[in-house]
């Protein structure tokens, strides 16, 4: 499903302040697997996730997701790929604070211009499922951290992607909410989604949910 071959990422390459975030990372993730990306902050986990999502391009190496060479896709197709195959849960949520819950959730659907009925039913079923249906019209800035997290999950799932990428999903949550998140992931796993969770939260380390761990340190795979 996800195949990385000696992937490196150097920021500001060639300049004095060049910084190597990833150094020759290679691994493979099969369909339906839940993989944990471990490592201290600054070890390159977030960079790796954004490369898999096609948000940036690796300096060297090759990334193949679902048979597509993400690292070589032009911007136009990378966006299409993200829309159809990737659900991204950001560490800082990256929601649009002045939009309501419903509007934030449907943002990925807007360019596809699907019928309003379908759009509403998809959003509504997700909101029900993650228990934020009653907050439908509330603005994001009035939500608590846990509620925002659920909105992010709904937004990530609205296009029914095969791959879910989570970047420090529990960094802004307390213990109870973190546990809730793990349960949500569990349900998604049973639906056959491929999930990559990048975290340094020890909560995840010995969970039965996790199939495999990959550890990074200073951009290198251990």
């Amino acid at each position, binding site marked *: 499903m996800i195949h990385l071959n000696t992937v490196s990422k150097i920021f500001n390459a060639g300049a004095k302040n060049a910084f190597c975030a990833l150094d020759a990372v290679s691994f493979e993730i099969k369909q339906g697997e839940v993989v944990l990306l471990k490592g201290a902050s600054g070890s390159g986990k977030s960079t790796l996730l954004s490369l898999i999502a096609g948000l940036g391009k690796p300096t060297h190496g090759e990334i193949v997701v679902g048979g597509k060479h993400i690292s070589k896709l032009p911007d136009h197709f990378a966006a299409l790929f*993200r829309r159809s195959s990737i659900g991204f849960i950001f560490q800082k949520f990256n929601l649009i604070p002045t939009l309501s819950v419903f509007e934030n959730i449907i943002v990925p659907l807007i360019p596809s*211009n699907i019928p309003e009925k379908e759009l509403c039913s998809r959003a509504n079923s997700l909101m029900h499922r993650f228990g934020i249906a009653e907050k439908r019209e509330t603005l994001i800035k009035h939500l608590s951290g846990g509620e925002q997290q659920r909105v992010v999950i709904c937004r990530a799932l609205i296009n029914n992607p095969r791959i879910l990428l989570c970047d420090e999903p529990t960094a802004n949550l307390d213990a109870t909410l973190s546990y809730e998140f793990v349960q949500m992931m569990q349900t998604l796993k049973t639906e056959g989604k491929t999930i990559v969770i990048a975290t340094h939260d020890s909560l995840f380390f010995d969970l039965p949910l996790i199939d495999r761990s990959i550890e990074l340190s200073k951009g290198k795979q251990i």
Partner: protein
Amino acid sequence: MHIKFNTYLLAYALNALYRRGFKSFFTFLMLSFITFLMASILIIAHAIKYELSLTIDALPELTIQNLQAGRHQNISLEHLDTLLDIHGVQRAIPRVWGFYYFDNAGVNFSVMGIDTFDHQTKEHLETMVTAFDFEAFVATPSMVVGKGVQRILNENYYKDYFNFITTEGNFQKVSLAGVFDARTSLESNDMIFMPQEIVRNIFGMHPQEATDIVLRIANKDEIATIITKVKALYPSSRIITKEAMRVSYQSIFDYKSGIFLALFLVCLVTFLMIVYDRASGLSSEEKKEVGILKAVGWQINDILKEKFYEASIIAFSAFLCAIIAALFFVYTLQAPLLRDIFTGYSVLKPTFVLPFVVDIQMLSVIFFLSVPIYMAAVLIPSWKTATLDADEVMR
């Protein structure tokens, strides 16, 4: 290609404008105001130009004046029959007119003598003056005046008559027989019309002399020949053709539009400054939003489309509002404040009833100076941001 109109995108754009509430409203207001100013000035200038070209059409083809030592003198009427005999001349009409300075108000009235025996005079006056009694007008010394003259006379307590002071220092009492229709105010405002004998009496003119003689000519092609013949008859004459008037008006307007261009440039510079302000980049929130949109799967053209809608909503609404406001301002309110640029140094200010003309060329000038410039100013920085990598933008 998928060209179905995306209402979600439009709604998103509307929402984005609404979210940026004050900023959007301010941009809209500034854009409307500048376009409104530009439109008002152009509409007024264009209407005046249109009015002048319209009045020139009704002017006599030739006006003959007498010069002595290069100065304008009265013209003798003895050659009138000779002039009429020139082939192609339909009518030769001697005119008596001049300016009467009314000391109390510091105003010059334009006084014109009319030929009461001319069969058209009655007809014309009855068209232009409401409830006009021609017989009464002829019976006693009377005058027909423009709105502005009436106003000044009223302010100086002359309600029904006015005492002109003749060159000999006597009073010539003339009663007020009527006031010209307000619609002609742009032409008639400072004018007084009365029978020629009375004008002669006031100005102390000889009965066998006139201010000038106008010739009505049916065939335009004969004008040049007629000028040569008149010149041979009256070597000292100055002949003004309708065509010369037209050309001189044109140059006046070229000259004046230069001045307006200078004023206009100020507007334009202001506008470009606003545009530059927008073009110099998006705010960090806007940038972050672009990044989020890219991250959740929007393509560059989706983002540009959304920004295009945003810019169009502002620019087109502002343009329409500005045009509506400008038309209302110029034609319904008669351009308060701006009117003073045009009538600034007059004492007898006319009511500013301009002709209503819609000129596509003028409207497109206003359009192209406002809408596309603003749209470019929004789209270019958005495009710059949208082409960057999403994670780079969000950082």
